[in-house]
């Protein structure tokens, strides 16, 4: 295999994996955009959806569509319930309160999953072919192609929603200024609930796709950590940012794995995105597409 072919292979895998990161990052961005809350439990949302879907398939013996529907429905309910029970009470409190609450939530979900659904690792088989497509130098696992496709579909749908639909614009209004949104007759709390439910939907799909790729156990939540470099690079409140950030993280990971790991014996793949994240924080803390907020002092 030639050098350029190797590079193209790394690139294409980076793009596909990156788009799957974008899907999860989208969940994070949706909540941040609408409610200003930083959700440290994003990975756990993905994990718990994976648990529900895998349990449906492997434990309760439901067909795939029902397992996915259970994960989707469960996450929508969880999203609404969390807003109602927990996050609504934290409105107007310092950011750290929400951060701590979601970190606590993350731990609870990590405990509750194995405790109530199943323990150990379960596969989450999807009825798609396992052998990769070989296109020229490219080596494309079908699951990653599906994941990338689902990501692009949802990113486009939510992008349209926020830019073009009146309800999406209302949600942006809520994010911009709650007081004024209230004066417009916008039921701010309902929109908060909807934002969390949307995150639930995205997380459920992320859970099914990543669950298939990695297998379902508590470690599935770790994929959530990749959200942070994605959103820091792209911008916390930007949907295009989630795409670009995801692509960067996916590509950097693969490049590190292909070009650096062989010399140092491996491992750089896992931390390279974070090096980039820290560098980005120093140079452009609001991300590539994020809103530059000028604080008045």
């Amino acid at each position, binding site marked *: 295999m030639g050098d350029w072919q190797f590079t193209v292979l790394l690139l294409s895998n980076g793009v596909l994996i990156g788009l799957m990161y974008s899907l999860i990052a989208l969940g994070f961005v949706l909540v941040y955009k609408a409610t200003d809350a930083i959700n440290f439990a994003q990975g756990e949302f993905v994990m718990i959806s994976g648990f529900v879907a895998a349990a449906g398939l492997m434990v309760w013996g439901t067909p795939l569509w029902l397992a996915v529907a259970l994960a989707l429905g469960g996450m929508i309910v969880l999203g609404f319930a969390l807003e109602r029970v927990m996050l609504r009470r934290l409105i107007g409190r310092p950011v750290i309160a929400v951060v701590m609450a979601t970190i606590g939530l993350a731990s609870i979900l990590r405990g509750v999953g194995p405790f109530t659904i199943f323990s150990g690792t379960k596969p989450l088989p999807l009825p798609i072919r396992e052998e990769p497509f070989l296109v020229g130098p490219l080596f494309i696992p079908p699951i990653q192609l599906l994941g990338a496709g689902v990501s692009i579909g949802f990113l486009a*749908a939510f992008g349209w*929603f926020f830019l073009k*639909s*009146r*309800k*999406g*614009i*209302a949600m*942006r*209004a809520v994010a*911009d*200024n709650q*007081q*004024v949104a*209230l*004066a*417009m*007759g*916008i*039921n*701010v709390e309902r929109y908060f609930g*909807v934002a969390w439910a949307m995150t639930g939907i995205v997380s459920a799909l992320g859970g099914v796709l990543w669950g298939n790729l990695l297998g379902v156990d508590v470690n599935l939540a770790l994929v959530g950590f990749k959200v942070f470099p994605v959103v820091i690079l792209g911008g916390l409140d930007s949907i295009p940012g989630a795409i670009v950030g995801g692509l960067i993280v996916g590509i950097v990971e693969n490049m590190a794995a292909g070009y650096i790991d062989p010399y140092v014996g491996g491992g750089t793949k896992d931390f390279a995105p974070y090096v980039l994240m820290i560098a980005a924080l120093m140079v452009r803390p609001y991300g590539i597409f994020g*809103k530059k907020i000028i604080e008045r002092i």
Partner: protein
Amino acid sequence: MSALVEIREVSKAFGGVQAVTRVSLDVTKGEIVSVIGPNGAGKTTVLNMVSGFYHPDTGRIALEGRDVTDLAPSRIAELGVARTFQNIALFRGMTVLDNLMLGRHVHMKSGVLSSFLYWGLAQKEEVRHRRRVEDIIDFLKIQDLRTRPTGSLAYGLQKRVELGRALALDPKVLLLDEPMGGMNQEEKEDMARFILDVNEEWGTTIILIEHDMGVVMDISDRVAVLDMGQKIAEGTPDEVRANPAVIKAYLGEPKASAKEARRG
């Protein structure tokens, strides 16, 4: 006929500070009523209670005879009360058109899910609301600003767009918190004209807070004067102007009174 807005003996304290004490005010349909008073008199607090942002500690507020004292601001907006804010409160990063369309929110029926599923319905609704917004754009003479982001507009125009957004609610009652604050003379005259036109053309009842006495006296049917959280006078502009308690409280220092006496 009972008043459109009845404010009955409302009081509000923040911590130990009594911001508003037993203030009553009736506003009849079609009136322009100004609330004036020195800084810290409690004017904005009264406005915030009418629009539901604060709930009075005691007393009650009714709209068309219906008790709205403890309703959420979004509910009160749905019942036909629109407001503007003291500091410009446009949604930044959105166009003038998007801001005005948000004013139509209370009249939009389709939900979040249906905006995904029944795109056609949402489109039909959009056209209807867009027509109303275009009327307001024409009315306020901001045709060429439609697609401009609000942040890029001059101050006076931002205030005008904010008025337009409130008008887009088709309100029965319009609450304006210092609509001319920070404007130059020309902008003030434009705004005063628009306020009068809104009142005339659509019969909208208007309650406004304003510091510019000239404007207040020109456009108001009635004026209520607050001082230190209490209503000290109410009446036509002429009555209020002649009221010694008002002159003392509002104009304050003897020097200003002397000037007023010389002029009058």
